[in-house]
């Protein structure tokens, strides 16, 4: 019994990173009604970019690496916006999708080239701290991952619901034509959405690197898939949905990893996705109307 509890708690804590990735997918979808498939790869890419700090300054503290990944995420988010959305006609539903697939492959290739395909060790914070309650333990680094992810989500909510930018973003997502005719520059809001999701992705990538202990180019595809699964389970366009679904998928996969091993784990995550598609295709929190 205790081992299941342990597996669930570890999984849920790690699931916070899935929630961040899911938020990235869902936010762009909510605002632009477009999928940005390169998002998870860009997040991993930004986490790699954080490692550049160690190249410049050997022995730099882990938080500096995180900060650099965060900043690189924002920059990469804007770059993805420019290359895959800004100059590409948004009317054509497939054009931007294919562009983001191209970007996903490009980022993947760049990572493989830069690292010769070798996994890179990633610094962690609090990895030597363990909170114990009898046989039950909480890993300090996972707690940090969870805490930072929750802080990011709170910051995002404040931004969306308490600022003008958030108001503009919500207006664009509900009625982009009317928003434009209210004088909102939709292009600017879209670009800002990419920067914000990029920042979140950079943090998510760094947190994943920190809790796994290493980064590898092999992370991008599974993370893309998990991010999409989280988005679908949560309900496309719903941020609370992505958060709940992220934690759910994290806990679920870790329990199955405990019982069935890491090789079979993702199989069950896919089954969970199918179950949702059949029984609750709109996800946990289907977005309410307001679209034309």
């Amino acid at each position: 019994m205790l081992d299941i509890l342990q597996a669930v708690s570890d999984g849920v804590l790690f699931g916070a990173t899935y929630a961040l990735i899911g938020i990235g997918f869902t936010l762009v979808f909510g605002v632009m009604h477009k999928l940005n498939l390169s998002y998870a790869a860009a997040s991993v890419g930004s986490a790699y970019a954080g490692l550049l700090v160690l190249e410049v300054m050997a022995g730099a503290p882990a938080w500096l690496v995180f900060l650099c990944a965060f900043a690189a995420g924002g920059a990469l988010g804007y770059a993805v916006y420019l290359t895959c959305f800004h100059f590409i006609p948004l009317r054509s539903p497939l054009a931007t999708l294919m562009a983001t697939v191209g970007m996903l492959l490009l980022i993947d290739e760049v990572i493989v080239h830069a690292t010769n395909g070798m996994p890179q060790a990633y610094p962690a914070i609090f990895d030597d701290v363990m909170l114990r309650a009898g046989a039950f333990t909480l890993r300090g680094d996972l707690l940090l991952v969870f805490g930072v992810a929750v802080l990011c989500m709170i910051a995002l909510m404040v931004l969306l619901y308490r600022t003008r930018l958030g108001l503009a973003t919500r207006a664009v997502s509900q009625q982009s034509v009317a928003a434009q005719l209210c004088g909102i520059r939709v292009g600017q809001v879209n670009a800002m959405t990419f920067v914000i999701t990029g920042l979140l992705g950079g943090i998510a990538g760094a947190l994943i690197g920190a809790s796994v202990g290493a980064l590898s180019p092999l992370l991008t595809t599974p993370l893309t898939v998990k991010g999409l699964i989280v988005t679908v389970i949560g309900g496309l366009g719903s941020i609370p949905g992505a958060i709940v679904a992220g934690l759910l998928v994290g806990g679920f996969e870790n329990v199955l990893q405990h019982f069935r091993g890491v090789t079979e784990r993702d199989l069950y995550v896919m089954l969970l996705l199918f179950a949702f598609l059949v029984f609750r295709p709109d996800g946990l929190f289907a977005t309410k109307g307001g679209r034309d």
Partner: protein
Amino acid sequence: MLDLKGVARYFGGVRAVDGLELTVGDGEIVALIGPNGSGKSTTVNLIAGVFPLSAGAIYFRGEDIGGLPTHRRLQAGIARTFQNIRLFGQLTVWQNLWVAQNALEDRARRGFFARWLGGRARAREEIFQLLEFSALAHKQDELAANLAFGEQRRLELARALASKPKLLLLDEPAAGMNSEEIGQLRERILSLRQRGVTILLIEHVMELVMGVADRIAVLNFGQKIAEGAPAEIQADAAVRRAYLGGEA
């Protein structure tokens, strides 16, 4: 105030608007009428900048605005309402107006933080005046999607006014209204004119058009077939043919 010179818009082979000439003077209320599909809404969309012009030019206060993006036209002083209501359904009444009002001010603000991260604390007296004017003050915290139809129409008008337009384009504002509501709408339109707002009104409801318009232009198949005072239009043979068909 507004000058359309040979304005045209083609959708493939369809000439939705074809060589339209129209002038709206300062403080005037001009109505644009015509059968369904005659190009009225397309004209509004062209003036507001939703689609580009296929030919012709649009002058607003002497300046050619034909190539400007929508937000620049709004900034210049052109606002509109929509035939099918397009409110921000999941924002409150208050926030709907706040969006429209803020989007304009943002241009004046330089810094990123001042521009994007300011909160609703800077709310304005103006929004409350607009709410009063539209008889929506008691609904200010209601989500726009939960409003009754007539209230949504009033909110659309208020939202267009939030940007303090010089020219207001009203695209079928009376659609679906009962005659009491139409009466109130007429009062509102006339009181806007008192404040110096110029209005281009697209409307089917003759009760409203005949009551407020100084001048009426009639469109049919994208072309203007008549223009004049309400009484002249009512007597015009070409107009009757367009509406009734045949040689009536």
